């Protein structure tokens, strides 16, 4: 990694994955899905858990949204807007990488 790094942003062709050092788990004591990251714990709602569990670094945002639109019988544009918003926040706070 060089010193001339520039910021990165999520778009439809991005293939997001959990950042290194970030682990998703279900915590039995709290009955809750969560991300564990260095010095941070992020509780996940059901939607965020479904989206992040499919971020494998191979599937693009576009493909992921098409999948979800079919499964949840919802318009793809609406799903895509929600997914992009979630992923942009996750990228900025370092939970995912693209």
């Amino acid at each position, binding site marked *: 990694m060089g010193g001339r790094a520039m910021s990165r942003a999520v778009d439809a062709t991005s293939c997001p994955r959990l950042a290194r050092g970030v682990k998703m788990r279900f915590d039995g004591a709290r009955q809750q899905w969560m991300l564990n990251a*260095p010095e941070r714990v992020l509780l996940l709602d059901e939607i965020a858990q479904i989206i992040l569990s499919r971020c494998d670094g191979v599937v693009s945002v576009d493909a992921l949204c098409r999948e979800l639109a079919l499964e949840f019988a919802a318009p793809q544009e609406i799903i895509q807007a929600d997914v992009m918003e979630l992923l942009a926040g996750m990228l900025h706070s370092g939970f995912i990488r693209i």
Partner: protein
Amino acid sequence: MNQPAPPLALLAELTHRCPLACPYCSNPLNLELAANELDTATWFRVLDEAAGLGVLQVHFSGGEPLIRKDLEALIRHAGTLGLYTNLITSGMGLSQARANALAQAGLDHAQLSLQDTDAAGADQFAGSKDTLAKKTASAAMLCAADLPLTLNTVMHRGNLDHLEAMIETALRFGAGRLEVAHVQYYGWALRNRAALMPTRAQIDHATEIVTAARVRLSGRLVIDYVVPDYYASRPKPCMGGWGQRFLNVDPVGRVLPCHAATTIPGLVFENVREKPLAEIWKDSAAFNRFRGTAWMPEPCRNCEHKEQDWGGCRCQALALTGDANATDPACALSPHHAEMFTTAQTEAAAPAPEFIYRRGGGA
């Protein structure tokens, strides 16, 4: 009082032994000897009890945890319990074989400290030799072992002007996260406060650098940074609130609400050798002493922020007012706030005195 929620994280201070002698060391003034440290079997039990209590993350710390030969065994054990494992290390004494063994044991993340980007400064602020070269090599070893890395730096008047270079170093080291911490002034750091206190202008400049870097490096590097207490107007929610999120087991097994809690006179800390962790967390007088809001004096008791900052830092209140119950002087509503700010400005404006280092090699 209601049952407290389970803690999120355990700070496992495996040893006070350390190859460095940083002038702002956060360990107690009186260090525990190796002979008194908990053994492997007891740490296994502590990890079992922590997981049972609901702890999610364990931070292996010290001193220098690499000094413990059972570190890999402890990491492996924590991993089998589903705990997220983090190693907080100076990187001194690391070899490639050891880094590989840590990764093999299932370590989730490593946090490496760096005292300065300048070689002479790194040695001066670590009280050691060839620090920068050794830590640069350690960063490469951790990366080669494929361990995710955070670079941690404690900043003060002597290195704050190198913050831009520190950000570049974090990227060069392959870190995904940079933790910019400020010195917290109790224990050893309080003795060296005048030599460490930055000026307001240094802080303002640093804040600008971080703000710009966070935008420039979004998606590449996460930067943790907060304005230090002496120049802040609101206290920090120290440890996320006393006895609310963290517990700390020290090298001899004492269970502390924060790593500096032993500076507070009159608190009795229970020991994992004698009682289960869950019982200590829920029932011990030390954990209940400042838990919640019932202990608070005015103006905290009726303050709208009391459940955000939880009254700030008890150790700092003690260090600066002589009373651990007092409002944290970092708060603008504290009668000691103006004095705290003036102290910082006066000390930062004067020539820096020589550091006082720990002697005797115990640290």
